[in-house]
């Protein structure tokens, strides 16, 4: 693979040094990539160079033109810098332990994001469809519960309010 990334091996495999090459050959390691970015999302590569990933599932969360029924012109994302990245990474690792997926890449955008633009981009690769779908569902569900990122609604008059109380 081409990207700087975090590798983690499944389980607690103890590797004897004399069997190292054989063990490495059979060990399936997950690749996780977490990026919090300020500009537009750059989609993760969806190319044909994987020969054991029968399923590739991509989720794009996009900004809608209303929040809680009120018209908005954009969303501004705010993060707890450091903690957001750490919580996302921890969550990705948990997801890879909980579901038999291969790789999980996630990009979350910060700052002002216009209507229709992608704020969250997640790609999951796995052998079969089932685990990719379940892992995607769980990962995003948990992200929305624990990763310290918030939305500010930009209203038509230009004011900016925390999304929940867009009065």
């Amino acid at each position, binding site marked *: 693979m081409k990207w700087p990334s975090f590798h983690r091996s499944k389980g607690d495999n103890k590797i004897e040094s004399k069997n190292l090459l054989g063990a490495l050959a059979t060990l399936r390691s997950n690749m996780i990539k977490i990026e919090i970015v300020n500009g537009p999302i750059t989609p993760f590569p969806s190319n044909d160079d994987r020969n054991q990933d029968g399923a590739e599932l991509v989720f794009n*969360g996009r900004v809608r033109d209303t929040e809680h029924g009120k018209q908005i012109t954009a969303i501004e994302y*705010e993060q*707890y810098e450091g*903690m957001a990245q750490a919580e996302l990474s921890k969550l990705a690792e948990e997801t890879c332990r909980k579901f038999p997926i291969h790789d999980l890449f996630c990009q979350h955008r910060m700052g002002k994001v216009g209507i229709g633009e992608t704020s*969250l981009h997640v790609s999951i690769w796995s052998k079969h469809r089932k685990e990719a779908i379940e892992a995607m569902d769980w990962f995003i569900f948990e992200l*929305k519960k624990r990763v*310290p990122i*918030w939305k500010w609604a930009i209203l038509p008059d230009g004011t900016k309010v925390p999304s*929940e*109380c867009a009065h």
Partner: protein
Amino acid sequence: MISLCLCDSVVNIMKIKIKCFSQVKYALGENEIKLDLENGSTTYDLEKLIREKANGQLDDVSLRVAVNQQYVKDESELKDGDEVAFIPPVQGG
């Protein structure tokens, strides 16, 4: 930045940094608050203080506590130099 002092002796204080996000930032009008707290103060004491300062604007907001960028479940004692955040419901995605 605002600075509050709850201590009566200089020896018994600790310096705490509070990070403010979303509704907490909106209510307090600050990104970050530096406070001197009495030794032995807990996350509970600090949350009470923050909610008072918000003048009712955070009454309907549930807050989770993070100390040094880790969620903490129960009331815990703070120590000098801690970074604390009262985390309103998150909205990523």
